[in-house]
């Protein structure tokens, strides 16, 4: 479904992604794992057309996407739920959902109806006309995913969907991911919660210093000694701290 080959992303002199190749098949959940600053978000942003890669080839359903802008990607069905949720706090919950359907919408707003998406999020349905700033972190993440689903994606990119959430909310996010997958949605996910992510994913890629250092099925990866030692041997919180201090290598 998605084929990315030899992807390079530079920010001025800083090379964030240095030759990453990966693929996502229809119906799969593929995880991208790595420490902070490994180049995961840049990879995802390039795959969604948010940033233009310096080099590389991106194909979606056989069609070349490289060089197109984000709105073209969305029209083709590639939708990203950004890191940090990025919901519109001054807009209502309903308006946030309508922004999600922006690319499909007609000139008047009334027609972008969120009913299909809302069936999955009863909590949001109850609060449609409240400003999104009223939502808790977990609810805001649900809104961010719901907003992405409004664009009717065939490939959903999730960037750190559980970052900063309570354990209960983390649970809800992973339940949602499983539910979406069972309905046939293809998902590419970047997550720090490696254990939980590999439990729902089919395959995974481990990124370090802008390169893929390890890849394989989720089962193999969760048994891989190197990965276990580095990402699974410690709980995620202290992993994050160590990664931030740069002691991980």
């Amino acid at each position: 479904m998605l084929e990315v080959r030899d992807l390079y992303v530079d920010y001025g002199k800083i090379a964030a992604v240095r030759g990453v190749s990966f693929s996502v098949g229809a119906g799969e959940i593929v995880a991208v794992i790595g420490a902070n600053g490994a180049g995961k978000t840049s990879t995802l942003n390039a795959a969604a057309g948010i940033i233009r890669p310096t080099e590389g080839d991106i194909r979606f359903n056989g069609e070349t996407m490289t060089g197109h802008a984000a709105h073209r990607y969305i029209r083709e069905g590639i939708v990203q739920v950004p890191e940090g949720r990025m919901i519109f706090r001054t807009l209502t919950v309903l308006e946030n959902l309508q922004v999600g359907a922006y690319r499909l919408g007609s000139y008047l707003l009334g027609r972008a109806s969120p009913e299909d998406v809302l069936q999955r999020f009863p909590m949001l349905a109850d609060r449609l006309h409240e400003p999104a700033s009223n939502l808790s972190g977990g609810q805001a993440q649900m809104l961010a995913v719901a907003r992405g689903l409004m664009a009717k994606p065939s490939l959903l990119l999730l960037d750190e969907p559980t970052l900063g959430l309570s354990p209960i909310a983390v649970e809800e996010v992973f339940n949602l991911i499983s539910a979406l997958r069972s309905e046939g949605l293809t998902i590419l996910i970047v997550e720090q919660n490696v254990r939980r992510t590999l439990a729902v994913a089919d395959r995974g890629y481990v990124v370090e210093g802008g390169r893929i250092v390890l890849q394989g099925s989720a089962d193999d990866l969760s048994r891989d000694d190197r990965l276990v030692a580095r990402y699974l041997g410690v709980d995620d919180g202290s992993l994050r701290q160590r990664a931030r201090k740069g002691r991980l290598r």
Partner: protein
Amino acid sequence: MVDFIQTTIDGLSIGSAYSLIALGFTLVFGVMRRINLSYGPSIMLGAFAGTWIFVTLDAQPWLVAAVTVAGTVAVGVYVERVCFWAIRRDAAIASMVSSFVIWMQLEEVATILLPGRTYPFPELFRTGGVEIGPYFFRMEYVTTLTVAILVLVMLRLLLFKTRFGLALRAVSENPAAAAYMGIRPGRVIFRAFVLASLIGGIAGYLLLAADQQVTPYFGLWATFKGLIAMMLGGMGSIPGAVVGGLILGVIESQTQWYLGNAYKDLSSYLVLFMVLVLRPGGLLGQGIAEREAQAFRRI
């Protein structure tokens, strides 16, 4: 009491035109967090185009109105391309400085187009006014107020009932998040500029038709009034622009009536100063002021 109410009515009428100009500033500030100092001069040049066809071709008032609005939009597009789009990745101050430079350019163009200082500007209706009880409603003011209310209603529908309005509000809050949803911020900003120019052209026509004359200083005057009204009401706040414009109009007409013309501007600066000391974000702009302050704290 009759005097007070009468001056309030006059103030609200002229204030409704200030509101429209403040709306133009606030729409652009809202989507870009940048100030377009050339906004007033763009309206002035549009009005000069209008008065030019009036003076040279003896055009009908409605045609002058159309040319004024269309001229303002054309100049607005030029300003957007040069001062905002071309340097959109540079610091916000760069846009303000270059919009000041373009201001000078627009004034030059106006004086080349019509070298004199003052030109007549046609009014829409020749009738004097209506009397209701002890109150007198000048026809120009009735027109101004009616058109301003119409524009506000249309703008509200546009912002809250259309896809473009939603995109504009989304970009105002967070252009990066809007881009993730397939909105092209550059396009939304361009359209917001066209919209602001359209509103400015209408406001300019109404104000000048009430004065029945236009000078190159109208640009400076309109930028001042619009900025003061916007800051009174709150930067980037649409209800704030409306409230700010109305308050400015009432303050001016009351001081003019009770203290004389000389104190008109002084009193409005004084009120603006007090508002900004007590509520730094303007009367209704506190939310935006706080968000910006938070953003600075994060840096």
